[in-house]
C-alpha cells in the first residue's frame, strides 16, 4: 500500500495543474496579505504603514490599569481618541478589553477602573450579557439553568488576563478566515481528476486489470488525496504565518485567549486558541477533500467533476451567508471560518440537559458523521467502477 | 501540378528533425516510409503549414505555400496521425464543422456530406457521436473530412495505424479510388499498404532523405539478392551476424530464414522474388 501511495503522490505532484494551483495559491496569498497590510496599516495620509510593535505587555492588573490612567489620561478621552488608541496604540488589547467592559456597563469609566477586583467582576458580567445577547441569534435559546452553567464557567476565567501586542496574530486570523476558501478551490482542481477515466492522474484500463487495481489502488488514492490536501493546507498556513511574522511579528502567542476573543471562557493561551481554529480548518479541508474525491469517482469525467466540485464548494461558501443559524452551524465551511455572530466570541455552547457541549465538540461529531457518509458512498463505488 | 520541396531543414532546439530534403512531387501516390522519429510527421506538418521550416522553401506551381496561405490550404486535405474529435460531435456535426473551416459554402456542404459519408461507408452512423466509433470508423471519418473539399493534395499520416486487415484493405481501396489527378502522400509502416496503393516511395531516415523514386526501381535493386533457408539455431546465430535477416519463422527445431545479400556459403539457399520490404530492410536497417 505504501508503494502505491508514493506512486500516486508523485503522479499528482507531477501534474502541471497541481503545481500551478499551489503556486497561484501562494502568490495570491502573498499579494492579498500585502494589500491588506497596506490598506489596514496606512496612516491617515494613506501612505505610511506603521506598526507599533513595541508593546506594553503583561498582566492587566491594578498596576497596569494605574499606568494607563496616569500615562494616557483615559478619563479625558473622547470617541475619536479611543478609536485611534484601538487602531494604532501599543496598548490596543487592553483598550479593546476595557472598551468591551465600558460598553456593557452603566458605570462611568472611573468606577469601572477603580480597582482590579471590581473591574473583573464587571468584565464577567459583561461576558454573560454578551453571550446571552449572541444567543438571541441562535436557533435555540438558553434557559435560566443554561445561563447559570455558563455563568459558572465564566466565574472560572482566570484573572488578571495577560495582554500585549498581538496584532500579527489578529491579522493572521483575519486573513486566514478571508483566504481559507482558496484552499478549498485548489483542492477541487487538484483532486477532482483523481478517479476520472480521462486524465493522466486518473484510472485507466491497465490499472483496473491489475491484482491490486481496485480496492487497494482506490484506497491508496484516497490516502494520497488526503495527504496532498494536508500538504496544501500546511503550505497555506506556512505562507500566512511567515508573511505575517515578517510584516507584523507574531508576538502574543502566550497572551490570554481573552486578549483577542474577549468573551472566551477557556483558560488557554491565544496560541492554543489559534491552534483550535487551525484544527477546525483542517477538518473542513479533509471533509471537502473526500467529498471532491467522491464526486470524482462518481462522475469519472475530469471537466464535469471539476465543475461540480467547484460548484459544491462555491455553494457551501455562499450558504455561509444565510441568516438561518442551524443551516450555518451544519455547514463545514462555517466550521473553518468561524464567522460567529459576535466579533468577541470564540465558541458557543449546546446543552443536553445540563451538560454543556462546546460547538468545537459538535464540529468534531458532525465532521465524523459527514466523513462516515462520504466514505460509505465512496467505498460503494469501488466495485461498480467502470471506464464507461 | 507540382509540389516542390527545396533544401528543407527543420530544427527543434538541439535536434535536426529534417535535413536538406529535396523533392519534386507531381500527381501520383507517394508512400512515405521511415522509422519512428525519422521526420515523416514533421514533413507532413510543414507541408500542411501547421509548422514552418527553419530553412528552405516549398512551392506549389512555383509559388511559396506560406505566401499562398489560405489559397494553398484550400487545396489540401489532411488527416493527422492523432486526433480526437470534440466529444459532443456526431459524424455529421464534425463534417459540417470541418467543411465550414474549409470554406465550402453551405449549400454545397449539404450535398457533400452525405456523399463523402457514403464513400467511406459511414452513412448509417451519420448522427451517432464520434466517440462511440471504432478505430476503423474514426479513420474512415478522418478520410471523409480530408476529401470533403476535393483537395488537390491529400496528406495522410499513418492512416491505417490500428486497423484490422479488412479495414486496411477497404481503406487502401478508398485511397486508390480517389488518387487520380491528385498528389497523395501517405505515411505508414505497413509495406503491403504502400505496395498496394503507391507508385512512388520516399524513404526518410533520421531526418535525411534516403530514397525518392518509383517502387519498381527499388525492388529491382535487390533482385537476385533475396534468399530463404531452413537452418538450426547454431547456423542462424552465425548467419544473422553476417547478413540482413528479414524474417525468421520457427519450424520445430529448425528456423526458416529469409535474408538479403550474397548467398551464405554452405547452405541450401533458395532464391526468392524480392519485395519492397526486402529493399527497405537492406537499405535502412
Amino acid at each position, binding site marked *: 500500500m505504501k508503494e502505491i501511495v508514493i506512486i500516486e503522490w508523485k503522479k499528482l505532484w507531477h501534474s502541471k495543474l497541481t503545481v500551478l494551483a499551489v503556486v497561484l495559491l501562494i502568490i495570491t496569498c502573498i499579494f492579498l496579505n500585502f494589500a491588506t497590510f497596506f490598506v489596514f496599516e496606512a496612516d491617515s495620509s494613506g501612505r505610511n504603514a506603521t506598526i507599533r510593535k513595541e508593546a506594553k505587555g503583561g498582566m492587566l492588573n491594578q498596576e497596569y490599569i494605574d499606568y494607563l490612567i496616569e500615562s494616557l489620561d483615559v478619563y479625558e478621552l473622547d470617541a475619536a481618541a479611543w478609536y485611534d488608541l484601538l487602531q494604532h496604540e501599543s496598548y490596543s488589547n487592553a483598550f479593546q478589553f476595557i472598551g468591551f467592559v465600558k460598553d456593557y456597563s452603566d458605570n462611568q469609566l472611573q468606577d469601572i477602573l477603580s480597582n482590579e477586583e471590581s473591574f473583573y467582576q464587571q468584565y464577567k458580567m459583561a461576558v454573560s450579557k454578551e453571550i446571552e445577547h449572541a444567543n438571541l441569534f441562535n436557533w435555540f435559546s438558553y434557559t435560566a439553568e443554561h445561563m447559570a452553567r455558563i455563568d459558572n464557567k465564566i466565574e472560572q476565567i482566570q484573572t488578571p488576563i495577560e495582554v500585549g501586542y498581538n496584532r500579527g496574530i489578529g491579522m493572521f486570523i483575519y486573513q486566514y478566515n478571508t483566504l481559507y476558501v482558496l484552499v478549498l478551490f485548489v483542492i477541487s482542481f487538484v483532486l477532482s481528476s483523481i478517479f476520472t477515466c480521462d486524465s493522466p492522474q486518473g484510472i485507466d484500463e491497465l490499472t483496473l486489470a491489475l491484482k491490486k487495481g481496485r480496492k487497494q489502488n482506490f484506497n491508496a488514492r484516497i490516502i494520497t488525496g488526503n495527504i496532498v490536501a494536508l500538504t496544501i493546507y500546511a503550505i497555506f498556513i506556512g505562507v500566512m504565518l511567515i508573511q505575517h511574522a515578517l510584516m507584523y511579528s507574531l508576538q502574543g502567542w502566550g497572551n490570554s485567549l481573552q486578549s483577542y476573543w474577549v468573551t472566551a471562557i477557556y483558560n488557554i493561551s491565544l496560541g492554543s486558541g489559534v491552534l483550535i481554529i487551525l484544527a477546525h480548518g483542517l477538518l473542513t479541508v479533509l471533509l471537502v477533500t473526500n467529498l471532491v474525491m467522491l464526486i470524482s469517482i462518481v462522475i469519472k469525467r475530469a471537466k464535469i467533476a471539476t465543475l461540480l466540485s467547484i460548484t459544491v464548494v462555491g455553494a457551501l461558501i455562499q450558504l455561509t451567508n444565510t441568516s438561518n443559524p442551524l443551516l450555518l452551524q451544519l455547514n463545514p465551511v462555517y466550521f473553518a471560518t468561524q464567522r460567529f455572530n459576535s466579533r468577541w466570541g470564540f465558541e458557543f455552547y449546546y446543552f443536553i440537559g445540563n451538560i454543556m457541549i462546546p460547538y468545537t465538540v459538535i464540529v468534531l461529531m458532525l465532521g465524523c458523521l459527514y466523513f462516515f457518509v462520504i466514505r460509505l458512498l465512496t467505498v460503494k463505488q469501488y466495485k461498480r467502477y467502470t471506464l464507461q | 501540378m507540382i509540389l516542390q520541396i527545396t533544401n528543407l531543414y527543420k530544427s527543434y532546439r538541439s535536434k535536426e528533425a529534417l535535413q536538406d530534403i529535396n523533392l519534386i512531387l507531381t500527381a501520383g501516390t507517394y508512400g512515405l516510409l521511415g522509422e519512428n522519429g525519422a521526420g515523416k510527421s514533421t514533413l507532413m506538418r510543414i507541408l500542411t503549414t501547421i509548422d514552418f521550416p527553419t530553412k528552405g522553401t516549398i512551392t506549389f506551381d512555383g509559388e511559396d505555400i506560406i505566401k499562398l496561405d489560405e489559397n494553398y490550404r484550400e487545396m489540401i486535405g489532411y488527416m493527422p496521425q492523432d486526433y480526437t474529435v*470534440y466529444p459532443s460531435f456526431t459524424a455529421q456535426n464534425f463534417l459540417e464543422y470541418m467543411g465550414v473551416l474549409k470554406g465550402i459554402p453551405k449549400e454545397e456542404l449539404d450535398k457533400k456530406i452525405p456523399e463523402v459519408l457514403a464513400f467511406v461507408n459511414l452513412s448509417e452512423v451519420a448522427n451517432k457521436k464520434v466517440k462511440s466509433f471504432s478505430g476503423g470508423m474514426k479513420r474512415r471519418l478522418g478520410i471523409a473530412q480530408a476529401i470533403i473539399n476535393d483537395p488537390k493534395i491529400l496528406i495522410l499520416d499513418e492512416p491505417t495505424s490500428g486497423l484490422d486487415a479488412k479495414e486496411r484493405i477497404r481503406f487502401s481501396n478508398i485511397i486508390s479510388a480517389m488518387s487520380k489527378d491528385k498528389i497523395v502522400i501517405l505515411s505508414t509502416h505497413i509495406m503491403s499498404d504502400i505496395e498496394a496503393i503507391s507508385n512512388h516511395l520516399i524513404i526518410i531516415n533520421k531526418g535525411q532523405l534516403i530514397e525518392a523514386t518509383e517502387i519498381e526501381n527499388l525492388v529491382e535493386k535487390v533482385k537476385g539478392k533475396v534468399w530463404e533457408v531452413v537452418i538450426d539455431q547454431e547456423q542462424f546465430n552465425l548467419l544473422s551476424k553476417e547478413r540482413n535477416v528479414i524474417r525468421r519463422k520457427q519450424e520445430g527445431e529448425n528456423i526458416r530464414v529469409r535474408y538479403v545479400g550474397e548467398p551464405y556459403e554452405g547452405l541450401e539457399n533458395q532464391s526468392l522474388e524480392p519485395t519492397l520490404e526486402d529493399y527497405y530492410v537492406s537499405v535502412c536497417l
Partner: protein
Amino acid sequence: MKEIIKIEIKRIIRLKNLLVIIGFVFMYSIISSINAINQYHVYDSSNQRILSARENLSESKKHQFALDEEMIKDTVARKNTNPHLYNRLVSTLIAANYDVYVEDLSADEIETFYSRWIAATTVNSAKTLSQKDIKSMEEMVARIPVPIQLGYAEGWKNVNDRMVDIVTSLVLITPFLVIPLFAKDPKTNMTDLCTATKYGKKDLTKARIIAGFTIASIIYVIALSIFALTTLLFFGFDGANLPIQSSLHYFFSPINLTYFQQFLWNACIGWAALLTLITLTLLVSVISKKVLTAALVLVFIIAIMILTPMDSNLHYYIGIFFPHNMTNFTNYYASPFMYHIFGSTILPHYMAILVSTVVVSIFTTLTVWISLKSLKQPLK
C-alpha cells in the same frame, strides 16, 4: 466568417444547455419575485398581517402625484394614515429630508423642503468630491425636475434593485463557458486538423473571439430579459418614466434618470462588465491552452479581484472598474464619484463603459496577437 462563428457557437453551447440555463434563470426569477412580493405585506405591532401585498400594491397603483408643498402639508397633518405603500413612501421620503419627526415639521420647513433636499443631495454626494466637482454636482442636482413625481413603480424598482445578483452571477459564471473556444480538452485534439484548413488560422481566431462575445451577449440578454419580464409581470410595468428620486434608495441621488433609463444603464454596464471578463478569459485560455488550467487561473483572478482590500483612492481609480464591482449599480447613483478626462467631468457610469471598452480592446488585441503568434502567422 459568419458560418465559422455559427459553428463555433454551436460547438460551445448547445440548445439543450441554453434551455437549462434559461430554466434556472426563470426559476430564480420567480422565487426572487415571490420573496420580493412578500416584503409588501403590512403587519401591525403584534405581528398580525393587516394588509396583504396584493391589496397593498393594487391600491398603490391607483395613486400618482407630485411631492409638492400641499402633499407635504397633508402628510404632516396626518391626513393620510393608511398603511398602503404609496402613503408610507411619502412619509418616509419627507422624514428622510429632515432630522425631526414628520408631524413636527414647521411651515417654514415645509416651504423650504426642496432647497433643503437640494442641499442634502449635494452634500451627500459631495463627500468625496473636490470643490470644482461639487459645483458640477450642484448644477446636476439643479437640473432634476421638482417637485418630484411619485407613483407606483415597484416593478421597475425591484428590477433595478435586485438585478445586481443575477447580473453579477452572469458576469462571474458565463466566462467559464467560453474557455473551450481557445483552450483544449485533454482528450480532444483537433488543433492540427483545423489549422490545416483554409480558414483555420487567422479567420478562426477572429471567429472565436466574436463567438465568445456573441455567446456571452446572448446568454446575458436572454437571462436579463427573463428576469426583468418575470419581475415586471409580478409587479406591473407602471412607473417606467418616474424619476429614481421617487424611491427612498435614490431619493438623494444627483443623477437625473427615470427607472427605465436606470434599467438600461444598469443593463449596459453589466454587459460591459461581462465583456471585460470574457475578453480576459479568452486571453487566459489562449495563453494556457488547456481547459482546466485556464479555469484555474480564471478562478484565481476573480478571487484576487473580489478579495483585494482597497482604500478609497484605490477603489476610485481601479476597484470600481473591476467587473464584479461594476455590477454594484448603487455606486453610480448614490454619492457617485466623478472623473475627469481632458478637463471634462465624467460621471461613473460613462466612465465604466469607457474603461471597459479600452480594457476589452487591449485584451482582444493581445488575444489575437498571441493566438496568431502561436500559429506563426504575422498580423496584417
